């Protein structure tokens, strides 16, 4: 207790919640690509459709495996039967696309008219013969990336409890043979590296969070080098390959916005959660690997050197941002991890805006943030939950930060007022996890600085007259 009091304390505030973010249904855009045999059906109105169509830009033209079940006036006033309507659409989807799973995304409208998606989906599932997963990713309750959380929490309940039945033995064999083939290629590496186990010497570990395949492989590889075997990921490339989850398995999250999924895995599936900082930035990745190793009783090897080596390779970018300040307006829940990394890079953080703060799920990350501030000798930033964009812009005008990480609604107006910005959504879609991708984060963060370097002598840094400031 006394130790905790000696440390600089984190300061949490909560504002009005009048802020700009993406609607959580946007998660379908990256999840349908990740889960290749899925179909996402967003049950909502024109408003939802318009958002998806515009926010996802050109992706809509690639015949995506998602669609709107657009509610019409007769649905709202209950002149039509929800069950029959959805069944009709599901049959059409089955006929056209034949997916392995249909994910129903509940929206604000289905909440308000209290459409019982969870209630009737088991019956519907039986009738059409395709699993139906229901996720309520609506703007009444959640922000942006939390949409993925609701989908993964629903999927966590669908993970098998036992290995597949022996009927599929042939396929299974093929898979293992293929895996053997892959690990063969790595044999030499494994022999060279110390403390490598061919069969895991620890309880099974499942990682959760949707990452692009190269990033997921990279992280698994990083753990493998320490002798940690990843038994499965939630989600997998195919719905039909969801990992076996048994009580007592260890689980670890890779993203800060997955608190419902973590809760579901702990409470419903009786798994043990490894609370660690998230593998964002070399510092975060090292802490993440270390924490997993320590829980599994493994002594990690060579992590300090690995981290130092990454930092060294970032030096050219670090020189650009050292001593500069950054302001997170907050919209995607990656803010704490990114702040912690940027403080370690030598930046100061004026404010961490964040839509929602789960202090239990993010505990290790928050502690790490405080520790990082201490070690770097910078004040601990204040964390503003449910921020108010209007107030934030007033604070930005006062603080004049060197960089504001913000949504697209504010970026151009702030740039016109001479304030550097970086779009926050880019951090959601770029590859930012693990040692290997640390450079990609800084590539994003330094881009406005590098751009300014090339146009600095032109003199029109403020294009809007001061009195026009909001």
């Amino acid at each position, binding site marked *: 207790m006394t130790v905790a009091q000696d440390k600089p304390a984190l300061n949490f505030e909560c504002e009005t919640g009048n802020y700009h973010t993406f*609607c959580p249904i946007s998660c379908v855009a990256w999840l349908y690509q990740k889960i290749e045999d899925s179909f996402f059906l967003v049950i909502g109105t024109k*408003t939802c459709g318009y*958002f998806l*169509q515009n926010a996802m830009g050109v992706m809509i033209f690639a015949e995506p495996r998602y669609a709107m079940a657009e509610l019409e006036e007769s649905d709202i006033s209950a002149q039509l039967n929800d069950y029959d309507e959805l069944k009709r659409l599901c049959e059409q989807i089955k006929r056209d696309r034949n997916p392995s799973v249909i994910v129903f995304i509940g929206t604000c409208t289905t909440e*308000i008219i209290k459409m019982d998606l969870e209630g009737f989906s088991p019956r519907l599932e039986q009738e059409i013969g395709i699993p139906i997963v229901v996720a309520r990713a609506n703007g009444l309750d959640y922000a*942006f990336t939390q949409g993925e959380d609701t989908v993964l929490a629903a999927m966590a309940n669908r993970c098998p409890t036992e290995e597949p039945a022996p009927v599929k033995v042939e396929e299974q064999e093929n898979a293992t043979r293929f895996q053997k083939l892959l690990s063969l290629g790595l044999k030499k590496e494994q022999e060279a590296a110390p403390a490598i186990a061919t069969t895991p010497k620890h309880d099974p570990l499942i990682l959760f969070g949707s990452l692009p395949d*190269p990033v997921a492989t990279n992280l698994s590889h990083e753990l493998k080098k320490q002798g940690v075997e990843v038994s499965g990921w939630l989600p997998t490339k195919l719905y039909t390959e969801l990992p076996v989850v048994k009580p007592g398995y260890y689980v670890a999250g890779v993203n800060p916005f997955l608190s419902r999924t973590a809760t579901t895995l702990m409470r419903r599936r009786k798994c043990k959660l490894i609370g660690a900082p998230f593998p964002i930035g070399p510092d975060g990745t090292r802490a993440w690997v270390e924490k997993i190793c320590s829980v599994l009783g493994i002594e990690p090897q060579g992590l300090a050197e690995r981290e130092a080596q990454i930092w060294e390779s970032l030096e050219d970018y670090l020189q650009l941002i050292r001593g500069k300040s950054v302001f997170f307006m907050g919209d995607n829940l990656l803010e704490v991890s990114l702040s912690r990394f940027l403080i370690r890079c030598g930046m100061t953080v004026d404010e961490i805006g964040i839509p929602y703060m789960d202090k239990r799920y993010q505990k290790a990350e928050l502690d790490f943030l405080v520790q990082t501030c201490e070690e770097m000798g910078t004040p601990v930033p204040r964390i503003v939950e449910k921020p108010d964009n209007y107030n934030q812009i007033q604070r930005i005008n006062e603080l004049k930060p060197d960089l504001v990480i913000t949504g697209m609604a504010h970026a151009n107006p702030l740039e016109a007022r001479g304030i550097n910005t970086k779009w926050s959504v880019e951090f959601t879609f770029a590859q930012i996890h693990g040692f290997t991708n640390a450079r990609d984060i800084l590539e994003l963060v330094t881009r406005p600085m590098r751009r300014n370097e090339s146009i600095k002598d032109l003199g029109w840094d403020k294009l809007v007259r001061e009195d026009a400031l909001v």
Partner: protein
Amino acid sequence: MKLAYWMYAGPAHIGTLRVASSFKNVHAIMHAPLGDDYFNVMRSMLEREQDFTPVTASIVDRNVLARGSQEKVVDNIVRKDREERPDLIVLTPTCTSSILQEDLENFVSRAQLDAKGDVLLADVNHYRVNELQAGDRTLQQIVQYYIAKARKKEDLDTVKTEKPSVNIIGLSTLGFHNNHDSTELKRLMADLGIEINLILPDKASVHDLKKLPKAWFNLVPYRELGPMTAKYLEEEFGTPCVDITPMGVLETARCIRKIQQVVNAQGADVNFEDFIHNQTKNVSQAAWFSRSIDCQNLTGKKAIVFGDNTHAAAMTKILAREMGIHVVLAGTYCKYDEEWFRKEVSEYCDEILISEDHGEIADAIARIEPAAIFGTQMERHVGKRLNIPCGVIAAPIHIQNFPIGYRPFLGYEGTNQLADLVYNSFTLGMEDHLLEIFGGHDTKEILTKSMSADGGLNWTAEAQEQLNKIPGFVRGKVKRNTEKYAREQGIHEISLEKFYAAKEAVGA
């Protein structure tokens, strides 16, 4: 319920927001859940707007669902009134608030007690009208409100201006090439010696609305936004309305002749015939283009037109009458205004398609196989898939349809832009076709595609698999950089480990 992947017209509140945020010093407050303020992103990104979009949300969350908005909406209106001192706050319902059935009218009247500015509830039903209809209605509503207000204060100015003058109604934010059309129309009016009384709603102040009756006539260039307002003004003040879209040489001339007739009827004595002749011959190149050998080659070529009412109808007429192109199919997604469209284009095309389903249009394009398409971004992508060139003539549009350079679609300069658009679409198609016949530009086979001929470098299966996962357009670069790194390091086998190491070292 309807299975939908794509929609042409947005939801109703977008129309209301487009009109409200086009005015100067008008703020819109949406009664909406988190994330519905996507309009701000579109305006900021597509229009590259330098100012903050004057739209905020009064957030509907769980608490609102349980207890109702109570003070929240009123507080938000009053707060915004204090913070930004807008002349008018438009409370904008969304699909969510429509079904909550809260008494928004009551919130507005309560907020009005404390607010210095005016407060108005946009009168649109989310489930009955779309973006375009809602925009039209909101504009009329705001005009009507301020006319009534001026009448009450008895400072309505109904005396016509000394010289002929016009209200141009319907130019708005996020409208297809509206800012360029605005400049072109102003220029046209100046050339005709007609004063501009007011432009609506683009950058207008609500305080000026009381001057509306001073104009001799109203010009409504677009079918989608403005007719309701013009009709209202005609009923109230007898102001005649010119609703011919000056798009294309013939329609521009028809529009100008109508203006001549309207102002002469009110006592002016103008004759624009020389002007029309001069512009058509010297300023617009479109008339000459029609006679040129280039255009002759387009004779009888098949085209499909699809878009909103204004642009699809005008385009169909231009292609058929001015360029001799065979319009096989003309279509619109403005289902609610179907009759008008049929009347406008029926003589100039073989088929008419009225549909909001992009699949239907795509099927028609595949069936007809035109030489060029003139449509929206959606048709452009259909064209890409079928290898048919497409000129974009209507919303929905992307950032490339908000050009920085001067690209009006209306007026005489607009005719030049259209000639380019049409001609480029067709020649591209022709060039493509010839290339195919003669087997492409480069008939010699390229021997080495990559810089590094696979000299002694081995990729392990695992590393190769990772490489294959990298999107095609950067894969070559990543491969080259990795191999370059491997050579520098004297490595002969690229394992997964080395693959990552290369990325860490050189950002491959």
